[in-house]
């Protein structure tokens, strides 16, 4: 008999792949709804009908949408992201460096906020109902209730305008020293950390509180266990799945949050690229960027599910 874990893991991965295909389908056809003929738009008003027809054939535009979808997916798998409509450059070249910039931003943010958020979330759950818990709750509710751009503008006003510690804008190409790096990253990272920590703290606190109310934690109390032991030994191992899930969901929030942050701080990342593509209606670039974001989201969620499956003792 196969191990139930392997079956579940395989099932989860299949679900992720199918979801990705569905997402690709949605993105492709959403962008295909664009009114007007792409070839005409590209060639401008002065184009001859022959030139338009030639470009249509070259871009497979004369073929049914579904076939084009298949071509597009096939090309994505081989790493061919197509050519930008606007500046005719290969999209992989446009994205490459920008993606690295965004990943840097995201990883620094994650490295800072995950440990802080988990600590705050778990301690708030342990000290439930205390002054400390209430402060943490008020802070998180305030942060998740306001748009990211407000966190960003407030950070700028506090750190750049009043305190004058940091520059208001980032320019990653100017970085020459560690201090410079710190200054460039500081504002975006602070903003993003606030935004995703608030989510993570709330969800972690809820997950730990839920396991703390189970019968086996009460049993631990009746065995004479200390509060510390009840939380660390009895509640946490069982809250692991939900906590990893909370972390993944919050990190996936980074994907949306970076759009605002990269815009405000003028940070040359992939979200800014996508936003620019939207304003120029550069469809292949939008599709590719959107697929990268969705892939990132699916990776995070799938990893979280896999961790939850593997850490479940009932499946061992």
């Amino acid at each position: 008999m196969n191990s139930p874990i392997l079956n579940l893991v395989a099932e989860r991965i299949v679900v992720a792949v199918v979801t990705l295909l569905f997402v690709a389908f949605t993105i492709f056809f959403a962008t295909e709804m664009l009114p007007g003929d792409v070839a005409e738009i590209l060639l401008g008003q002065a184009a001859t009908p022959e030139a338009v027809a030639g470009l249509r054939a070259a871009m497979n535009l004369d073929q049914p949408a579904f076939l084009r979808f298949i071509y597009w997916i096939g090309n994505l798998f081989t790493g061919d992201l197509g050519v930008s409509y606007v500046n005719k450059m290969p999209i992989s070249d446009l994205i490459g460096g920008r993606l690295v910039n965004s990943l840097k931003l995201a990883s620094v943010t994650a490295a800072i906020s995950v440990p802080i958020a988990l600590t705050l979330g778990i301690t708030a759950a342990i000290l439930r109902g205390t002054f400390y818990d209430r402060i943490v709750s008020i802070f998180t509710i305030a942060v998740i209730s306001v748009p990211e751009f407000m966190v960003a503008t407030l950070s700028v006003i506090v750190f750049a305008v009043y305190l004058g510690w940091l520059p208001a804008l980032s320019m990653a190409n100017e970085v020459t020293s560690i201090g410079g790096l710190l200054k460039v990253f500081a504002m975006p990272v602070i903003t993003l950390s606030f935004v995703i920590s608030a989510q993570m703290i709330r969800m972690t606190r809820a997950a730990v509180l839920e396991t703390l109310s189970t019968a086996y934690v009460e049993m631990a109390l009746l065995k004479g266990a200390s509060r510390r032991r009840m939380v660390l030994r009895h509640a946490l191992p069982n809250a692991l799945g939900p906590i990893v899930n909370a972390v993944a969901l919050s990190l996936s929030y980074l994907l949306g949050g970076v759009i605002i942050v990269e815009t405000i701080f003028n940070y040359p990342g992939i979200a800014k690229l996508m936003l620019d593509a939207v304003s120029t209606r550069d469809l292949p670039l939008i599709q590719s960027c959107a697929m990268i974001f969705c892939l990132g989201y699916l990776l995070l969620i799938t990893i979280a599910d896999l961790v939850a499956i593997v850490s479940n003792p009932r499946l061992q």
Partner: protein
Amino acid sequence: MSNVVEVRNLRVDAKSDSGRTVEIIRDVSFDIAEGEIVALIGESGSGKTTIALTLMGYTRPGCRIVGGNVTLTGQEISNLPERKRARKRGTEVSYVPQSAAASFNPAHKIMDQVIEVTKIHRLMPIDEARRKAVELFKALALPEPDTIGDRYPHQVSGGQLQRLSAAMALIGDPKLVIFDEPTTALDVTTQIEVLRAFKSVMKKGAIAGVYVSHDLAVVAQIADRIIVLRNGEIQEVGRTQDILQRPQHPYTRELLEAFEPAPHARVADRRDEPEMPLLAVKDIVAGYGKVDEGGNPSVKVINKVSFELHRGKNLGIIGESGCGKSTLARVIAGILPAAQGEVLLEGKPLDRDLRKRSRNDLRALQIVFQSADTALNPAKSIADILARPLTFYHGMSGQRREARIDQLLDMVHLPRSLRHRRPTELSGGQKQRINLARALAADAKLILCDEITSALDTVVAAAILELLKELQRELSLSYLFISHDLSTVKAICDEVAVMYAGEKIEQLSPDIMGSEAGHPYSRLLFSSVPKLDTGWLDSLEQDPRVLQAYSRR
């Protein structure tokens, strides 16, 4: 002889969701001597678990000790700081929970949890603790005592977990062990094993115990003294023999009477010629999952079950949990369509799926469920709940319908003023009466009763049984009565079908539900029901081979 526990004028308050404070324990005092087992008996809401937990210096969230004192081995525990209380838990007083399945942490191996007390209180080296645990496993008659501790909680059965939690309670050599309804969730045949194991380790170690239960017969086997509780107050205290044979307090008498309901006065078969059965079930196969070509579902719950039920008669279906008796009710009602076989109502075949049955067929066959709490929509008033079948089946409206609702409330002996209430404002017994009234509103010929008294306190359940009998006399109803409780079935049924693992083992008259019953499993089942007799458990002898063959512990 010194007392392990002395409770004086204990009062506990609880805060309800709406913020009101209510006294749930009122002025309770009692002692427990060394090596003595005292039972706390009472119905739900009597405060028995709350009292037991105060002996550990613990109250559930929302509850608070507001008066009196609890002395454990000479030390007042109710005003100790939390850390000192924690030091006593596991070493001087320990706890065996009602649901061991929920009280074992799914993330750790059983052995680690059993010896955790010794780690917390640094009682002994790990190796010694493990050895001691294995000794306890042996004493509690657990299978494979050397290796069972290496498993995770989900890998052992409920009966075993319950005994393992007793090992967990005993590892720190406590002076007092609290058993909180430890066998309530178990089947009767398993319960015997567990009770025997508990009794022998407690007597051997001369450990004092508190046994919390609602079941007098179970308590009779293990307790030296019984404290009868009601609404947070002590009604009567006495030696077990005295309480059982010479109850002083009227409430105790009521409890004892409800334990053995009057047997059903059966209607004699007047006609000899075969009559068309009201309900006939023929070779039913049912279950879950995909049904293969041969008509077998991938998870088979019911296998080739047949029976007949005649008008005005009642058929009981008994068996332990998981034997398929509730599924059978659902199959008959068409909620779960059968994979094979047929259901005939008055000789007319019913479609397997209720969606294809005619409204008249649906009307004639009504189902009443176990849990009155979930069977009534909390968002609707009683009148709305009763009005719907009247509109749906009979097209009634206006004055006629209102009059009929009053009539239905009269039939189930509820005041008419209840019609504007919502289900959450009713007691368990009242809710179950409304459930019955809803089935009556359809003018049913046959009512499928699925464990309808199991969730009720004994006294309330006895009253419901009386009501069922009365309704049957007046309306010539028939009941298909599904239960795990033999005395309930005995009280109402003309015939009893015994089920085991999805099959009907045999069908017999309740009079002979005893020694001479044909099938060995039936005998095992019937003999496992605890009796109100202190010597019952010790004198009980069961064939170990039959036990082996039919145990799924």
